[in-house]
């Protein structure tokens, strides 16, 4: 009898818990659900958001931290199916114009106190579609060159103010010391549209290559693409670390931070991490230079911003806009500086941040980052006219799939499964097929 009672109690408790959980999901009014990624700046935002809740007692914040690709998938599903689970979403400048054109994002209209003109123009423009602002930048990044000053000094080398890719290759050859696990150059090799193809697209631009011609025909078999991939593959094979196809941003950051890379060309966001002695063993030996130039020299340049947007499916659009305005404001920058130090403030978004002498003093790489982002032009001209925008990506929805597929083909050249010519021919065929399937090209 007592066993029966215990079983009944257990079943009732379970039923109550499950029912309770079903009811709790409805979410209280005034609760904003924010979908974000686990980057350092976002973690700081989450920690400091208590200040926002204190100032806005009617608004409670509910955080959902997801892995980057899961976040994209969840947010896309949520918006497309009009579920309204998220009130604020963290997305990049790749998604903003595409989603805005789909009618998925709410137009943002900050008040005068927000000083929207303080946001760096290149960043602001990348979040604008048809003259309307659809997201506010939380932090932004471009590309720059990191190098080991001690290794350069030892080899009698000097990094020029505007290095070229030919020079970079020569420097890498000289400082490579594989016996001591010091590799002249580290570059992204992990396949993915946001991993190796972000760097390779940027490299291709300065070599005079581009993804498509004006009739959306891929141009992967062009001489410029061959030159791009030949440089990339030969540099990594001669002077790169072993297993380069496994190395994305984080892996290269780890290699450089632990003293295994001589030169690394990647996102400006790494500056703060490499300069932090808690995370980097080479904090006092890091040198900075602009992104190298290739034979074409010009071309669109890398620009990425993690931004906060409000999906149209949100039922609390006004509160959501209040929050994103707070999180990207000048006052928020000051709050981070006061609580976490100037080196921790979100970089690359506001001119006023770079005008603060405390920030310039705390972050010696600040001028390089500012210059890289100020001059970043994802809409810049390629060697031939092009029908798309974007520097390290192509601003069309198909690019995530295309980029990842081509990224895998490029990775195959590093592991000697394919030659450069074979890879480019294969990429040409797969892109043509993908664009035909999507109806963009005939």
């Amino acid at each position, binding site marked *: 009898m007592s066993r029966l009672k215990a079983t009944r109690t257990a*079943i009732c408790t*379970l039923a109550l*818990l*499950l*029912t309770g*959980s*079903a009811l*709790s*999901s*409805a*979410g209280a009014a005034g609760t904003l*659900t924010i*979908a974000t*990624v*686990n*980057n*350092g700046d976002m*973690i700081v935002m*989450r920690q400091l958001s208590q200040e926002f809740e204190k100032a806005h007692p009617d608004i409670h914040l*509910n*955080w*959902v*931290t*997801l*892995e*980057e690709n*899961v976040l994209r*998938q*969840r947010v896309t*599903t949520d918006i497309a*199916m009009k*579920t309204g*689970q*998220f009130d604020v979403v963290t997305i990049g400048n790749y998604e903003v114009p595409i989603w805005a054109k789909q009618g998925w994002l709410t137009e943002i209209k900050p008040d005068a106190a927000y000083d929207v003109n303080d946001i760096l123009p290149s960043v602001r423009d990348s979040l604008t579609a048809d003259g309307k602002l659809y997201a506010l930048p939380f932090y932004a990044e471009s590309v720059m060159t990191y190098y080991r000053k001690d290794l350069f000094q030892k080899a009698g080398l000097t990094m020029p103010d505007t290095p070229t890719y030919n020079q970079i290759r020569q420097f890498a050859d000289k400082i490579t010391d594989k016996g001591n*696990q010091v590799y002249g150059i580290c570059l992204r090799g992990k396949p993915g549209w*946001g991993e190796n193809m972000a760097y390779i697209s940027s490299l291709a631009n300065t070599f005079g290559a581009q993804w498509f011609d004006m009739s959306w025909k891929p141009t992967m078999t062009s001489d410029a693409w061959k030159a791009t991939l030949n440089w990339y593959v030969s540099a990594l094979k001669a002077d790169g670390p072993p297993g380069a196809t496994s190395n994305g*941003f*984080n892996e290269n*950051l*780890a*290699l450089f*931070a*632990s003293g*295994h890379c001589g030169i690394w060309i990647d*996102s400006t*966001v*790494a500056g703060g*991490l490499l300069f932090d002695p*808690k*995370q*980097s*063993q080479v904090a006092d030996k890091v040198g900075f230079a602009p992104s190298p130039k290739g034979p074409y020299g010009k071309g669109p340049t890398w620009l990425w911003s993690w931004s906060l947007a409000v999906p149209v499916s949100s039922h609390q659009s006004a509160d959501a806009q209040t929050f994103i305005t707070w999180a990207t404001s000048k006052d928020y920058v000051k709050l981070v500086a006061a609580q976490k130090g100037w080196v921790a403030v979100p970089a690359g978004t506001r001119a006023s941040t770079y005008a603060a002498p405390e920030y310039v003093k705390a972050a010696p790489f600040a001028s390089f980052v500012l210059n890289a982002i100020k001059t970043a032009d994802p809409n810049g001209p390629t060697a031939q006219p092009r029908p798309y925008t974007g520097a390290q990506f192509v601003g069309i929805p198909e690019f995530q799939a295309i980029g990842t597929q081509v990224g895998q083909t490029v990775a195959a050249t590093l592991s000697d499964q394919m030659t450069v010519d074979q890879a480019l021919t294969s990429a040409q065929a797969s892109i043509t097929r993908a664009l035909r399937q999507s109806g963009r090209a005939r």
Partner: protein
Amino acid sequence: MALKTKTSTRIGVTVLGWGIALWLFFPIFWMILTSFKSEVQAISTPPKLFFMPTLSSYGEVFERASYWHFALNTVIVSVGATAIAIALAVPAAYSMAFLPSKRTRGTLLWMLSTRMLPPVGVLVPIYLLARNTHLLDTCTGLAIVDMLTNLPIIVWMLYTFFREVPAPILEAGRMDGATRWQEMTMVLLPLALPGIASTALLSLILCWNEAFWSLNLTSSHAAPLTAFIASFSSPEGLFFGKLSAASTLAVAPILVFGWISQKQLVRGLTFGAVK
């Protein structure tokens, strides 16, 4: 001579057994070890086996996320899904084992075939169903999906265990006037208890580790430990120490539970293997 050969074979098998066990356990060991390293130590090349341990990763994990919230959701979903699945699977397996029809075999194979479908293939319809029934981001919704995912394998296992119970024992019960319900609850279930317990344990472990539906159907209220782990992966910045700490915290309860119940698990899985 024969004794010598026997001893050396035994030693060889023991060494091989330990070798395989250590090889299988190594990733878990390395994860636990990494969770006690600083982020710089976690990514050092060559990897460090000896180092000054730190609890900093655990500290950050507890600071950033509410572990107990995720753990409670996991317990509710796993126990709930397992309880419902067992309640549905016992009568199903009973009828298939003791009252088979010409379609029983086909039905069993069809049930199992649903496990062969990649989950993403039914993501959109299940997501829409969950949305329309207001079960998105609820433990109930996730428990139902987990239960349905594991139901085929549970029915199969129980069917196999029930088939091992000699039919004359049930007949004897019937002769004594037991109804179908009494026959099932008072004769069959006590006899097949080790099998049912091991099936429930397996279901619990599968639900605990389930990630695809957890990540797609929950966001904050009902997010279980798999979502907790995923939230520590970062596209920019070092995270291996924190990710290892989060993973260790997530697997620890089920690991301990599995350790304690391993006798029952093995007894259940080998139930009826030797007559």
